[in-house]
């Protein structure tokens, strides 16, 4: 039996319908809205005070103002990008609504696009207060990074989406028993992506692995910008190339896992 991939003829109306569905959910639930703002704000406050403390006690950090808080914000873009995607997906599993969607004319690619756009909306709700806090409480303006910030953001969000697509496929295939992967996958990436330290700190063999991850290039690029005041476009181009492969691989894996879910009947039993 051949696989089911419906890609042609995307419908903006169907994508809009899915965004509307998540928007209705978000505005109907203040705990969901609060959760979007709460953790990013907590992160920036904790790391902001830590940065204030070490700036006063270490010359290096005094010169490289904002390096910690910048890393925290960029990390959160990566983390929230993946989580924003995956939580919208999980909402369908929790609501036992996946069968309704899979039986509707909604195509898998439209579903994924809606989840990506929704992750941007969720990210904006969480990160905007974080940026305001960083600017006014800790004197760090993320936008002072200038144009490279666009490259940082695009690379991080695409990595977040790629992982989000892949883990959503795992949940679709294996049920909510695989839900914990959604929450933990990004933390597995954290030590290798070298968020708070340069890649050179890692042993040589781990550096090879680290350079396979697009976020590593972003955080190295951010440090080059904040410490040496140098823009390194080659890092961003390499990250984009890896992201392209990662995104294509994740999409292919999602379709494979969706078809596998159809083969083993897990779309009917969306529980554990």
């Amino acid at each position, binding site marked *: *039996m051949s696989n*089911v991939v419906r890609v042609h003829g995307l419908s903006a*109306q169907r994508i809009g319908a899915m965004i509307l*569905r998540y928007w*209705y959910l978000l505005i109907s639930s203040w705990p969901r809205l609060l959760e979007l703002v709460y953790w990013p704000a907590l992160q920036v406050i904790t790391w902001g005070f830590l940065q204030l403390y070490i700036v006063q006690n270490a010359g290096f950090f005094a010169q490289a103002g904002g390096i910690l808080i910048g890393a925290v914000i960029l990390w959160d873009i990566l983390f929230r990008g993946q989580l924003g995607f995956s939580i919208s997906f999980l909402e369908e599993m929790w609501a*036992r609504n996946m069968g*309704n969607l899979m039986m509707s*004319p909604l195509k898998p690619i439209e579903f994924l696009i809606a989840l990506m756009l929704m992750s941007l909306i969720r990210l904006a709700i969480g990160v905007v207060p974080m940026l305001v806090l960083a600017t006014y409480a800790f004197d760090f303006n993320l936008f002072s990074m200038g144009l490279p910030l666009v490259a940082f953001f695009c690379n991080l969000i695409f990595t977040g989406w790629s992982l989000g697509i892949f883990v959503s496929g795992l949940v679709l295939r294996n049920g909510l028993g695989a839900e914990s992967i959604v929450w933990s996958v990004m933390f597995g990436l954290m030590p290798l992506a070298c968020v708070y330290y340069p890649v050179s700190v890692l042993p040589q063999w781990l550096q090879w692995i680290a350079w396979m991850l697009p976020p590593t290039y972003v955080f190295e690029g951010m440090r080059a910008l904040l410490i040496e005041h140098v823009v390194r476009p080659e890092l961003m181009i390499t990250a984009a190339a890896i992201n392209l492969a990662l995104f294509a691989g994740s999409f292919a894996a999602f379709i494979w896992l969706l078809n596998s879910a159809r083969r083993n009947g897990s779309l*009917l039993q969306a529980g554990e």
Partner: protein
Amino acid sequence: MTMIRTSSAEPSSAGPGASPAIEVADLVKDFKAGRAVDGVTFTVERGSITGLLGGNGAGKTTTIAMIMGLVLPSSGRVRVLGYQMPEQSAEVLGRINFESPYVDMPMRLTVRQNLTVFGKLYSVPDLKARIAELADDLDIAGFLDRPNGKLSAGQKTRVALAKALINRPELLLLDEPTASLDPDTADWVRQRLLDYRRRHGATILLASHNMLEVERLCDRVIIMKRGRIEDDDTPAAIMARYNRNTLEEVFIDVARGRAQEAAS
């Protein structure tokens, strides 16, 4: 006399316009736990109401799920409205709909929000008017702005039916449409289904344990047991063949393996 009397063994190769609503041929589904559907073949003509009967584990839900494309067959073929499933599902999914106890509608969204989202997914023209029409037909106007999670079982069933009818489907697939409803509400739902078929000439395939429901609604009954078709005919003909007065008695005969003796 043979016990397995299924109609047209092979799906027709005629164009979509001339084809039956559903054509299933040699359908098999194997799960790790064993074979759920074992060589099922039947067709459902347009405008008919067909009941799929059988005990737990008979293969009804899996068969319906394969017709919908939610489950991929291990082998065999399914055509819906003349299109091969799941390969040509994009041609079909906007023209069919379903209701099942295995799926829910989002609980936090209001009834109106849910119907709006699904109406847009099905590209329903003049959606507000369609929701108002369904609210009237299915008597859900009083709780259109209430979250789905705060409705009673009967109200939820009516809302699920509204979702299933939002796109005026040519083919409606229903899995236990009146399960957990009181007799009055169940009767009311059945009447709405008959009205819908009469007004739109729609085809309905329903799986049910409720024999009275099947007797009242269905032109034809397919009885399944252990993944195979045990019998396939009109309710009256099946009852006559088994020398029984109700489908419930036939069901018990089949379930307890007395089918052969009863029919002979």
